């Protein structure tokens, strides 16, 4: 009896689930716990992490300059999310409701740009928007402006870059949610006398809300960390939390402080995911 249980359940479950469990423990759980520990550590005179307990790193988090950047980062992420929803929703609706043959192509056209390295595409925006870039050249050539416009290096360009990078993460869940919409529901709503707007607010929006929620999670959270977008397009004028962390781990070489800053990101993530689950969001739909 025992032998059967071993062969039928215990051994196969160890063989199948064992590797991924070990992997996740060693490369996800342990590193994150270590970061948590490190955030309470100090630096010695050679800038090495020593295991001496301190709350200094957390105290430094309340530095006014840092707080400004948290605010700015949340604002950028928020604007990015809102813009993504406003553009991606009608867009996903239009492509998801196209007749079958073209639909696949239209969908692929959203994905294809993302097979080109994201950095180089962000750089493409820089080329396009720079003082000697395409847009300014064109504007001056057409005598619309006499001086090149300073289009780069402010919050707006960072938001533009974020929207650009994260747009498909909003489109994908929305597209899935909208495609699942049963056409007869819309007809039923119209049949019951609902005008376009009421059909939208009474039927379509509630049924596709799950897509908006998962899209928002997948846009907002990464936007807090995408330091390279803020680097390339914001030029240091619109840093996000990711930039603060990156600096501590690279040039700043203050890993414990960087770890404490990471804890902020982890907490924000946990909070948002909790809200997402409260709203009835399915974790699985964040992955595909």
């Amino acid at each position: 009896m025992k032998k059967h249980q071993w062969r039928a359940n215990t051994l196969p479950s160890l063989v199948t689930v064992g590797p991924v469990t070990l992997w996740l423990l060693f490369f996800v759980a342990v590193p994150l716990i270590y970061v948590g520990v490190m955030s309470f550590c100090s630096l010695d005179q050679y800038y090495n992490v020593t295991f001496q307990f301190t709350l200094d790193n957390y105290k430094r988090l309340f530095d006014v300059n840092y707080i400004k950047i948290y605010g700015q980062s949340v604002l950028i992420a928020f604007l990015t999310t809102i813009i993504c929803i406003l553009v991606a929703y009608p867009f996903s609706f239009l492509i998801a409701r196209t007749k079958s043959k073209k639909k696949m192509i239209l969908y692929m056209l959203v994905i294809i740009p993302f097979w080109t390295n994201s950095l180089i595409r962000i750089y493409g925006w820089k080329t396009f928007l720079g003082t000697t870039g395409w847009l300014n050249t064109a504007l001056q050539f057409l005598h619309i402006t006499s001086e090149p416009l300073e289009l780069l290096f402010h919050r707006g360009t960072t938001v533009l870059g974020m929207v650009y990078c994260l747009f498909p993460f909003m489109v994908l869940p929305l597209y899935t949610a909208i495609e699942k919409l049963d056409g007869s529901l819309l007809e039923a709503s119209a049949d019951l006398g609902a005008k376009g707007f009421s059909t939208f607010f009474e039927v379509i929006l509630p049924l596709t809300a799950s897509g908006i929620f998962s899209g928002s999670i997948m846009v907002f959270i990464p936007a807090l960390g995408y330091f390279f977008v803020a680097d390339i397009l914001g030029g240091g004028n619109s840093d996000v939390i990711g930039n603060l962390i990156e600096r501590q781990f690279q040039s700043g070489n203050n890993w414990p402080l960087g770890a404490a800053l990471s804890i902020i990101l982890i907490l924000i993530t946990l909070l948002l995911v909790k809200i997402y689950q409260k709203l009835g969001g399915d974790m699985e739909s964040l992955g595909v």
Partner: protein
Amino acid sequence: MSRQGKRKTKKGIGIAFCTCVYLFLFLPILVIVVNSFNATTSKPYLTWKGFTFDWYVRLFDNGALLSSFGNTIIIAVVSTLLATMIGTLGAFGMYKYKFKGKGVIDGLLYIPVVIPEIVLGISLLSLFTNVNIPRGMLTLILAHVTFSVPFVIFNVRARLSGYDNSIEEASMDLGANRVITFFEITLPVLAPGIAGGALLAFTLSIDDVIISYFVNGQTKTYPLKVMESIKSGVAPDVNALSTLILLGTIVLVVLTQSDFLKKKKA
């Protein structure tokens, strides 16, 4: 306005709107492609100096760039293989067997998906430094497997949700042991989900910047090479390589998609 007229206007607005979105998505790509033909040789390679194919030739003299591309491919292939194997087994086991701590594994799976990449990047960097694993190809592969595994699992799981357990029982009933059953029955039936997961893992791996940035050591991947060159202005040969990669992937997709369509018809 007549009902038809209204509909036409609506449709027109819709098409115009979508076109704008696609323009927005493809504009930087256009910049890259155009710049790959730019004859300029002076930094930051922004002024248009005329049309040339030179960069597509010179590209093959840029050893550092080519080797970074090679690294990217090696890392993507190896990490995809590993992630797909571990992930497929894991998804299957979690679906099929009962054991304690399933919820914990599930929770761990979502972490790499939702947490900002930079957090995973610095935590892996901290781990590798602490246990003295020299940073390079190995750490890159380990990191890439880590962030791809959940995506493989989710894809395979989606396929498993429509899976009929009794086909495995039928296989065992007909004399196949568990291992043979897994390879003869389970694996082929799950193949589409596995392939989807693998493709996603591969895509994530070749495009990854943030996590690779922290764990690379001296081994440069293609995205990291781009990052390096951005400081001084991206050279046209980098643009040329990007264009080639894009072209390659499009051809690949068109080929596999049409093949797929053909199979569906048969």
